[in-house]
């Protein structure tokens, strides 16, 4: 219950997260699809950004861009311009453990 409250506090005033770029540090979501050219999507899939994968938003450069995303224990930094083309299942977005930030 407290977690849900925290989540809504943090998200107050923000639209529901639809893409990777909308995730706040420490949140995670399940990837649905990518609106990127085929070779780029393929490269990201090779790295583990697959439909169904859980992606955690971790720390970022000052200013929030680029941001580090964690997928299956490996970390990759993506720019916002790429992250906004990677869509999430909005209902899957949760705050991950504090350690995961």
């Amino acid at each position, binding site marked *: 219950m407290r977690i849900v409250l925290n989540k809504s506090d943090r998200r107050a005033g923000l639209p529901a997260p639809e893409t990777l770029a909308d995730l706040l540090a420490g949140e995670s979501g399940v990837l649905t699809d990518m609106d990127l050219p085929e*070779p780029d999507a393929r490269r990201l899939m090779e790295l583990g950004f697959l439909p169904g994968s859980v992606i955690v938003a971790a720390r970022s*450069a*000052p*200013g929030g861009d680029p941001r580090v995303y964690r997928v299956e224990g490996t970390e990759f*930094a993506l720019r916002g311009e790429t992250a906004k083309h990677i869509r999430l299942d909005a209902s899957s977005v949760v705050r991950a453990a504090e*350690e995961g930030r």
Partner: protein
Amino acid sequence: MSASPSSSSCHGCPVAALPVGAHHRVVGLVGPPNSGKSTLFNRLTGLRQKVANYPGVTVEERRGRARLDGDTEVVLIDLPGVYSLTPRSEDERVTRDVLAGEMAGQQRPDAILLILDSTNLKRHLVLAAPVLALGLPTLVVLNMADELESRGGSVDPAALAEQLGAPVALVSASKGDGIETVLDFLNGAVGVPRALDLPTLADVPKCRQWAVRVGDGAGYAAPAPPVWTRRLDAVFLHPVAGPIVFLAVVVAVFQTIFSAARPVMDLVDAGVRASGAWVGSLLPASALRSLLVEGIWGGVGSVLVFLPQILILFLFIGLLEDSGYLARAALIADRTMRKAGLQGKSFLPLLSAYACAVPAVLASRTIENKRDRIATILIAPFMTCSARLPVYTLIIAAFIPERPLVGPFLGTRAAAMLGLYVLGFLAAFGTARLLKSSVLKSDGSPFLLEMPPYRRPTLRQVLLRMYDRSKIFLRRAGTVILGVAVVLWVLAHLPLSAGQMPQVSNSVAGTLGRALEPLVRPLGFDWKIAIGLVTSLAAREVIVGTLGTLYGMDHAAGTAGLQAALRHDLTPGGAVALLVFFAFAMQCLSTVAVVRRETNGWRWPAVQFAYMTLLAYSGALVANRVVTLLLG
């Protein structure tokens, strides 16, 4: 099953000896970036390696020889790190072509060492499918076994070998654990991979499912998250502490390559001079002695003097890259570099360029994206390198009276110097924007930076890197610079008149300077400066010595006399024009030689030289006109 480094022969797969023909057996090392491939390569080959470029591309080819039982040797090729064999980047194309035997002038490897990071096994196993599908004898090397164990993960190599139909070795390349299995494989007893029911390689999700199934089948337990990496990132990527640490690292690198290298460079310089003088004292005064001492010795010296900076820079790069901090620094710098159309990884080479463009160009190797790398190489010489300082100091001291500008903090001369740094930076920034919006426009591939866990750099790795970078520099750049130094000596010392060498002003270089005078007259330069511009093609600071010679000043007389002579010959407009010219022009053949090597051809260095000279000429022209107008 514990994860202690152990080995496993492949149960049930046929064992065959590698064909031993007349040629050395060639084994290719394949693996994703950050799998520790180069560490294993260095472990197996030590100093018996050489680095060159693949023909026609800028991708580096690292070859080495591993000594085995008896006197046999096997040739190892460290192929560029790849995430897949889909030829998308230049690196991947090279790796794929070499493995498929389609690389011109390159023999197809007889066997493969596939290096995978055991702490990231499920992701890295995806590469196993296309590599095993090649049908070459393959040893799957699960690297970083020590880290897997310390973080509580485990894998059963025997079970994995069974799953993959190829032998598997669990090793720690940095510690050397488990290397015997790799040597056994290289020695010849190898399993030919069994035909597997491999997934359709084009279908990434299917490959992924396959990798997960294989990993599960081998009892793979992923290690716990790297606790220390999270803790360190909490500091290094902290919104406030992160940039402070970043700046501290930048200042430390800058300070060390800029000033701490100075005494060592002076020492090298003094050593070269002293040995040159000694050689000179053994020979009678003759053209030969002059060629040997001033031409060859001086030429070699001008190369050797960069060596301390290169060693120190690559010590830093080694520590930063191997520790994992370089990826964080690139992340922090990305936003700023993006404004110039570049990316985070360009920042370290550009920072090094403030000391010297030569190591900076070599440092651009850390940028995988080819267009970004070439753009970085092309703008690096605009950064105010240390060779410009003697020229700037001389002209500023001669023409700008020292007056306080901002209280006691900033004088007019320091402000002028600072202005020249800004000028160089703006030229670099503008040129980057120009390049990145035209010929080197990004191919649209997303910026993707893997954040490896922090690791302790090993001395061996760092020293090997310093060794091979300096070897490349000395051999490749050295030969070109030596040739050019000899040519310039000839230009400055011929034609002989009555068996005597001419004054510089009567030499071929002098004649060239006089011929150039009409061309540089609009900039406010006379024939003496024109000769200086010709001789300083070798290296910027050479103009100071040339002008000294032309004005009949002895080196020992100091620069006070030279300053007075310059004030007599140059208008203030011409002086400012000269400063601007040196800020922009690529008066450095060492850089030209290194750019040629690193871009694998004359095209980019030619474009760069022409562009910078044109910019220098027009900049100097405008500066001369404006200053003359303002003061007149």
